[in-house]
């Protein structure tokens, strides 16, 4: 059995050591941080640090790691009565991942209440489980080999007929299904509908020709591959699949998993309240045990989102604990606040009192009144009189700042907050403030932990469509339709000037809210048949089917008015919008028509 070195600094140390031994650990020595012996430490496989003060443990760890004579790789394992501190320290060490399994092994023994899920949470990203159906035996063999070569794909089965495929689908969950559209006897397109009922998340069509592409897109398949399929094309598909998963189900599922773990953690540790712990090395300044270490450090504040969701679902109840402002770009709470020149953003400012000399009405900065002979004597530059008595012959009604780099004068400097982590410098008005509450498990939360209630899925909001390909396809269709019968359709775009700068200033969260507001406004103002493409934040494209140019202009004018009023409510700077429209022509390609309208 491995030897362990335990550092303990309270009176419970012996009891804890006994418990360790009960679960089969060989405790070499129990010592406090002052008592430890380096040589003894070298013979140990791991160090178990125990204590309730995270900062103190951190300091001790620094000592161990900074030992110059260190030959042995020490595996710091943390243990604590609350274990919250211990687990919260874990993400702070780089290259410590391998210790997590050791830790969870120990945890498993100490507390049987933690289930196997804990390991799953930390597991590497899985490969996509792949199935293939194709009646061409030769292709099937070749394609299977290509898939097996790719570590991100795991080929589960490859079959030639539908019957077999359906049977297998019933037994096994598949992530990606490659389907040949031209199956002997039955059309692959019909099969796709069948496959969908088995909730296969990604269906990819394989075909010898692109003829079914449009129908396939309508069936919402993930991709359409034309034979022969090379490795490169497969890699392309893979990126797309990974992206899809990251965006939709995958992220939500992962977060739900973390939430479940957290709820269990709160329940088993009986943490009342489950509160934020002030911690210097956390980006937000606070950590939530078990939760914070399981989200990426870059988006540490998403722990707050997860908890807020849990509160909305009534698993947790919150109590006010702290309020903080975060960097707009990286959600860091460590910010430097300082005044800057509103014109050139310089921080070199000089603050001066204004002096008003009553008898001659001269008023100016105090430096105007300073004289060479005596620094503390004030002499009026207009009437050369000595100022005698503040409040009687002069006063100081106000003060001014002057910028030392651009000579600008002003009374109200911009207060800027610079993020220590990413260097982003924003006006404080644009910072995102947020409550950092402490939580308690509710009855519903307990039911979730006990398995009596299912965890409600956290849902993503409606995605703002910016699918350019779909927009072009719609455009093609509209031209087709128009060439058959005579009616008027219009292409239009609406441009909002400076929008990127505005979004940048507002920060991520607020700009997303505004984007959504704009999106909803446009959806509600325009007829349902309108096709909209939110290409860039400042340019929105429309196709108005069956609308004359006059009506299109009418819609756009109304939309512009409403949009400008929304913008002026949200933004302090002036933003101007403009729109253009023209009837769709049947003689030009969509790309040309779009380019033409843009450059008009």
């Amino acid at each position: 059995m491995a030897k362990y070195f335990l550092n303990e600094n309270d009176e419970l140390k012996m009891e804890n050591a006994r418990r360790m031994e009960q679960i089969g650990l060989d405790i070499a020595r129990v010592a406090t941080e002052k008592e430890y012996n380096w040589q003894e430490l070298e013979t140990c496989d791991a160090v178990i640090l125990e204590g309730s003060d995270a900062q103190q443990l951190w300091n001790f760890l620094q000592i161990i790691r900074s030992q110059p004579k260190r030959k042995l790789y020490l595996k710091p394992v943390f243990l604590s009565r609350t274990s919250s501190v211990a687990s919260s320290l874990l993400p702070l060490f780089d290259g410590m991942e391998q210790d997590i399994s050791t830790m969870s092994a120990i945890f498993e023994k100490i507390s049987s209440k933690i289930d196997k899920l804990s390991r799953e949470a930390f597991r590497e990203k899985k490969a996509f489980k792949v199935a293939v159906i194709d009646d061409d035996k030769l292709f099937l063999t070749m394609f299977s080999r290509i898939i097996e070569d790719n570590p991100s794909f795991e080929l589960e089965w490859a079959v030639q007929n539908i019957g077999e495929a359906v049977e297998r689908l019933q037994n096994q969950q598949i992530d990606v299904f490659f389907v040949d559209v031209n199956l002997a006897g039955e059309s692959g397109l019909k099969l796709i509908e069948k496959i969908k009922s088995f909730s296969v998340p990604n269906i990819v069509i394989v075909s010898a020709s692109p003829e079914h592409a449009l129908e396939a897109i309508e069936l919402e398949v993930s991709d359409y591959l034309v034979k022969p399929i090379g490795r490169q094309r497969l890699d392309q598909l893979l990126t797309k699949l990974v992206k899809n998963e990251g965006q939709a189900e995958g992220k939500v599922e992962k977060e739900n998993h973390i939430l479940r773990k957290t709820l269990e953690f709160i329940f088993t540790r009986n943490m009342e309240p489950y509160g934020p712990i002030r911690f210097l090395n956390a980006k937000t300044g606070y950590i939530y045990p078990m939760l914070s270490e399981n989200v990426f450090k870059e988006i540490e504040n998403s722990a707050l989102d997860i908890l807020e969701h849990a509160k909305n679902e009534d698993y947790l109840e919150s109590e006010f604990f702290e309020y903080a402002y975060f960097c707009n770009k990286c959600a860091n709470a460590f910010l430097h606040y300082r005044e800057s020149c509103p014109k050139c953003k310089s921080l070199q400012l000089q603050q001066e009192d204004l002096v008003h000399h009553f008898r001659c009405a001269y008023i100016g900065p105090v430096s105007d009144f300073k004289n060479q002979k005596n620094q503390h004597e004030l002499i009026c530059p207009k009437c050369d009189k000595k100022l005698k008595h503040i409040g009687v012959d002069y006063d100081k009604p106000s003060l001014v700042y002057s910028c030392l780099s651009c000579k600008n004068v002003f009374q109200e400097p911009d207060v800027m907050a610079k993020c220590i982590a990413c260097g982003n410098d924003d006006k404080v008005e644009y910072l995102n403030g947020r409550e950092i509450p402490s939580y308690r498990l509710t009855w519903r939360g307990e039911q979730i932990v006990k398995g009596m209630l299912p965890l409600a899925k956290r849902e993503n909001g409606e995605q703002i469509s910016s699918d350019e390909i779909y927009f072009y396809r719609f455009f093609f269709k509209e031209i087709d339709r128009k060439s058959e019968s005579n009616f008027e359709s219009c292409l239009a775009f609406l441009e909002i000037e400076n929008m990127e700068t505005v979004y940048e200033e507002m920060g991520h969260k607020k700009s997303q809210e505004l984007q959504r507001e704009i999106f909803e406004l446009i959806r509600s103002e325009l007829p349902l048949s309108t096709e909209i493409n939110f290409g860039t934040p400042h340019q929105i494209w429309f196709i108005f089917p069956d609308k004359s140019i006059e009506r299109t202009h009418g819609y756009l004018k109304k939309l512009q008015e409403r949009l400008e009023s929304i913008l002026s409510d949200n933004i302090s700077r002036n933003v101007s919008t403009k729109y253009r429209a023209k009837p769709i022509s049947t003689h030009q390609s969509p790309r040309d028509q779009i380019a033409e309208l843009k450059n008009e």
Partner: protein
Amino acid sequence: MEGFLQFWENEGLRGFFYIFWFYFLLEFPRHLLLDYLLLPIIYLNKKKNQKADHEARRKLWEECPLVSIIIPGKDEGKNYYNLVTSLQEQTYRNFEVIVVDDGSGDDTKYIGRDLEQRGKIDLFLRNEVRGGKGSAANLALNYTRGKYILHLDADCSFFNDAIEEAILPFYKDENIGAVSCALEVRNSGESLATAFQTIEYLLTINVGRMVSSSLGILRIVSGAFGAFRKDLLLEVGGWDVGPGLDGDITQKIRKTKWKVVFAPKAVALTDVPVTFSKLAKQRLRWNRSLVRFRLRKHRNIFFPNKGFRFSNFFSSLDNIVYNQVLNFIWWFYLVFLIFNHRDHLEYILIAIFLLYTISKFLEFGVVLFVSHHKYDKIKLLPYLPGMVFYTGYFMRTIRTYAHITELFLYSSFNDPWNPQKSSSEAKKIEKDLERVF
């Protein structure tokens, strides 16, 4: 009626002149004859100077100097938005706007700050403690960067070419240091008081200043709308303690080598007091400054010393004689008239009324001749008979009261228009000046 005609037939033309000697000897030459004499000269000059005008305008646009607009004031926040909107419509765009909030007690500071953040005001300065309008203007002056300074009141709005026309004179004659601009009444239709003031402004500003400007005796650059060279303002040390600081600074400028002229085409509109009582208060303040500044602070204009100039001498003399001395004499004249003709008093009064009405119509003819938008001015004709009472009695009474209180009580130093702290300090130095001369 019969008696009236009979009475005047008896008196004859000779008697008429004898009775109304005050009008024919003193008022008629200054207010009417001079106007009509100068009118053709001004008109011919204008024709002759068209080329020079054109040349000046070319020079102005070639140089395109930065103009600093300074707007000091207290509790004017509600006017800021209209003001900056009016400024944004200007044909001349190279200007900066500096607004000073002189210790307002209302929302002015929030409005000003907001407009500053939106870039509509270049610099908004707020004094937590009120210091008086002169100090507020000096504060703004301290932070101006332009070659020319436009001093505006926040409650004014401007014709689109007002700034261009206001600084144009500087390019006609390089000896010009200050330009007095035209003020017209915006709320003329609001009450009888504002209608009378509209006519009064047209007579005294549009015509009166044009006449005095061409005679070289212009004595005031309105605080509401005036343009100055910045180097000149620095030379005279900016504004002193008010009230009446616009007349005061013009007087200071007149003592330098620089000229002061009137620019009739640079027009601003302003709101005037709506009620007679408010008007009376305003005019008491204005009239006191005649005593305070012309008779006292700047009386060295009358002394033959180093800076003596006849134009300054006549400028002040004209003001003092016509607005003060004759104002007093008129009361004696009135008493004398009533005493002498107590039997036929009604005939006298009717005749005075008719005489002055005709005079007003003749005076107004000049207004119609020189001003733009003539149709709007014709609409004022029905009010002209009323002007006899307005200028003849109402204004005279106020003027006399103001002069007496200022002469004996120094009331302008107690005017709440200016904070007491600086008024009392100013009183000390201005009294010192009296002792010196």
